[in-house]
């Protein structure tokens, strides 16, 4: 039933030396699982590494945003992927209680921006420059938005200041919010099959920019001042006249974790992975159909030199 773990065998060959430190407590460390592949991979890698160090690990399915109350009370211990781009508010509120602490960035950068499939460029050659968008508004329009172009934004809760951006840059577009990312990518899949024009919010690391051939719209580069100071940027009278910031993907956990399992806290803090590595693994699962376990095993075997330093 269980997959074959070359890892475990490798560890046996090296000898008991693999368990570098005695675990401070054998209580299970609870890591949260959400519903997107990248997060499953990140969490499973962390779990595998902690298990290599001798810790008892438990993976718990928990809602991305509902999990904070669990992290604060110590019911849950570690959340491996909190995107500054989508969970900033909830994360700040939670950290402010003092019951959760940040274990630093994962090394991955969440990128989110307006995106279009490559074939759209044939009809709108000025892309990816944002200034070409107004010439192509008709192309992206639907009966409800015409003559304005239709931009499919993320769920309302993701924020993103798209309405402000449209106003500040004088874009002839209307934001239609998708309720979930599943719905958003369903529309992309549909349009892509028909080779129909579509302009939407895409983020990375995610399987969509791997599976579909397309490009990000190039807005004036983001700066903190651009969001706060009207005079900065192309429109001297408005804020948000630039692209979106990229955001760290953070690790956050229960404040008591460091006291109870100091070695684990150190390993979690040390965990680092790059966008490219993650993108490749997400592609293997979501596009090529490999199982998460196999992809994680592959990474563990190939990167032993990396993760052993985390648990020293």
């Amino acid at each position: 039933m269980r997959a074959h773990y070359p890892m475990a065998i490798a560890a046996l060959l090296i000898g008991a030396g693999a368990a570098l430190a005695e675990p401070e407590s054998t209580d299970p460390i609870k890591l949260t699982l959400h519903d997107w592949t990248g997060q499953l991979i990140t969490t499973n890698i962390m779990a595998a590494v902690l298990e290599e160090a001798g810790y008892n690990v438990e993976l718990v399915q928990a809602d991305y945003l509902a999990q904070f109350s669990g992290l604060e009370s110590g019911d849950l211990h570690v959340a491996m992927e909190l995107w500054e781009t989508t969970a900033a508010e909830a994360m700040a509120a939670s950290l402010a209680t003092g019951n959760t602490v940040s274990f630093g960035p994962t090394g991955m950068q969440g990128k989110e921006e307006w995106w279009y499939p490559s074939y759209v460029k044939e009809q709108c050659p000025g892309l990816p420059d944002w200034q070409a968008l107004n010439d192509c508004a008709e192309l992206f329009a639907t009966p409800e938005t015409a003559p304005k172009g239709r931009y499919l934004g993320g769920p309302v809760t993701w924020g993103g200041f798209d309405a402000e951006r449209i106003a500040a840059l004088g874009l002839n577009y209307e934001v239609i919010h998708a309720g979930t990312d599943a719905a958003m990518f369903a529309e992309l899949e549909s349009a892509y099959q028909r080779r129909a024009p579509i302009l939407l919010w895409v983020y990375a690391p995610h399987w969509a920019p791997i599976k579909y051939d397309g490009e990000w719209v190039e807005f004036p580069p983001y700066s903190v001042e651009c969001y706060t100071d009207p005079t900065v940027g192309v429109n001297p009278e408005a804020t948000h006249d630039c692209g979106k910031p990229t955001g760290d993907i953070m690790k956050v956990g229960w404040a008591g974790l460091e006291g109870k399992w100091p070695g684990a806290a150190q390993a979690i803090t040390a965990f680092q992975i790059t966008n490219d590595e993650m993108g490749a693994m997400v592609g293997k699962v979501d596009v090529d159909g490999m199982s998460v376990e196999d992809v994680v095993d592959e990474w563990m075997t190939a990167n032993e030199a990396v993760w052993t330093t985390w648990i020293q």
Partner: protein
Amino acid sequence: MTPWRGIWAGLALVALGLAVLASLPAGWLWPPQAMQVPFAGWLTAAMTWLTDSAAIGPVTVKDLTRGFATLVEAPYEVVKVLLVDGITEGKGRRATTIIPPLSWVAVTVAAVALGHFARDIWLGLLAGALMTYLAVFGQWDSAMVTLASIAIAVPLGVLGGVALGIAAWRWPWVERVLSPVLDLMQTIPTFAFLVPILVLFGFGPVAALLATIIYAMPPMVRVTIVALRAVPSEILDFASMAGCTPGQRMRKVMLPVAIPDLMVGVNQVIMLSLNMVIIASMIGAGGLGADVLASLRQLNIGGGIEAGLAITALAVVLDRLGQAMSERVARAEVRQGNWWRRHPRTTLVLVVALLTGALGQLVPALQDWPKAWEITTKPFWADLIRHINLSYFDQLEAVRVWFLEALLLPVRRFFLGLPWLFLLAVLALAGWRLGGLRLAGLVLALGLFIAATGLWELAMITVYLCGLSVVIAMLIGLPLGILAALNETAGKVIGAVVDTLQTLPSFVYLIPVVMLFRVGDFSAMIAVVLFALVPAVKYTAHGLRSVPPELIEAGVVCGCTRAQILRKIQLPMAVPMILLGLNQTILLALSMLVITALVGTRDLGQEVYSALATADVGRGLVSGLAVAAIAIIADRLIGAAAGRARARLEVA
């Protein structure tokens, strides 16, 4: 009667005129800011108090609820070891199985044996076939996780429901307290109370179990109260004469007599528990719900459908077995001889379980269905949607645009253009006409509550979307229900479709719908209609079928044509039941709000969802209460109308 018809027509005209012709200033349309009450803040504070510092003596509420969670967790763990985990050594990735869980062969044989025990071999074969479906389509492991939680949630929901129902039957004050609580349990969207539940009961499967029980139990309580009331008084008198104590009377006389009615409640508990599978998986239940969500996030529509149908298969197995068991109770069979002779089926299942468990070490196919033999329909579904998308998108788009421009947008404008005081006055008037001053007062109070939350505009969008969906669901459901009642073959087909729609998670068809109709109100409406259709069909068919045959014969004798019998006898007689169906349709439409928020509507459902996203407990609860207020207003008005219709029928 006649002057009132004129008055209602006049009010409708005034409403149209107000909403369409005169565009009133916003001050008239929506309640003033000044009357807003900061409910959200209060509720957040109350919740913080409840979860952090509330205590009964030295024990905090949180300790109590956590203790309760541990109690529920113990049996769940046992079932999970049996069905899912087996007994293992070590943890996580290094775990090695010492004793495997029950093999797929053993569980399937057990399902067949149960079916045979409960009714006959055909039921057994049906149950066995559906279990085999789970194995063949690679859903086994997840299905067993779901089955383990259902196996705990349903008995707890049923027992709790019966206990509360008995209490309410015995002490009227319990019923008075319970009734509004049940209304709230059923109508507040689950997302609204998710965070408090997680805090009180901890993360993981137990919280998901309890959320499921909260959602699934209310019908059991109601059915129990009704069933106990329906026990004939002669039987009660007989029990008293025989010298039963009140406890004996309940256990030995009343409950057995009420069993057929109680089984209706059990059926509802099973169906509603399976409805919660998706939401439960978001807070730690795992299983099939998690598979549906994960598949659809990868746009793996076939995977979503297969996992969704696995939920339906489980529902069918559990429901049919449950129904058959209830009918069986009467005829106990007596066998002679050894234990294994007296219990041939139990013996068979035990032997198969042990044998496959032991042989499974040598022949793995006996323990787990081999991956290589799994069948999948994923490419078929992907190609089907792709084909429709490529060939018919333009036509579908035309349909969508027509619906939007001719129906959705005008109705939306109408509801957003109605002044709030006018609407409240009309509702109160309707309440007064249908149910007297009490009902008028209740409707007015609930309406004012919505006004005071400051969510009036969102509430109007909710009313527009749900109202329109309910009208369309009734327009489709009534004829289908009539057809199902008149024609037996059609009845069977429609029954199967309706059962599937009720248990297939709506998320499964939501994503293909979005692919063909884009995100927005139209897609949301399709999803709501598909789900809310179920009671419209079921209650209409049931109402028509229960018209007394003498009445129909009388019609035949009088020389009525079939159409006349239907129009003049059957339909009028079925009106109270159809109104009950309408009532349920509205409740189901409102319960879909949170799902429609997932395709980008901007109503109360979205407010609940956003509140969860910002961890704002109070805001979520207030929006949930506003949804409940709308549901209760609709429920009471229609209930009163149904009561009047019934009274008229009895007079005639």
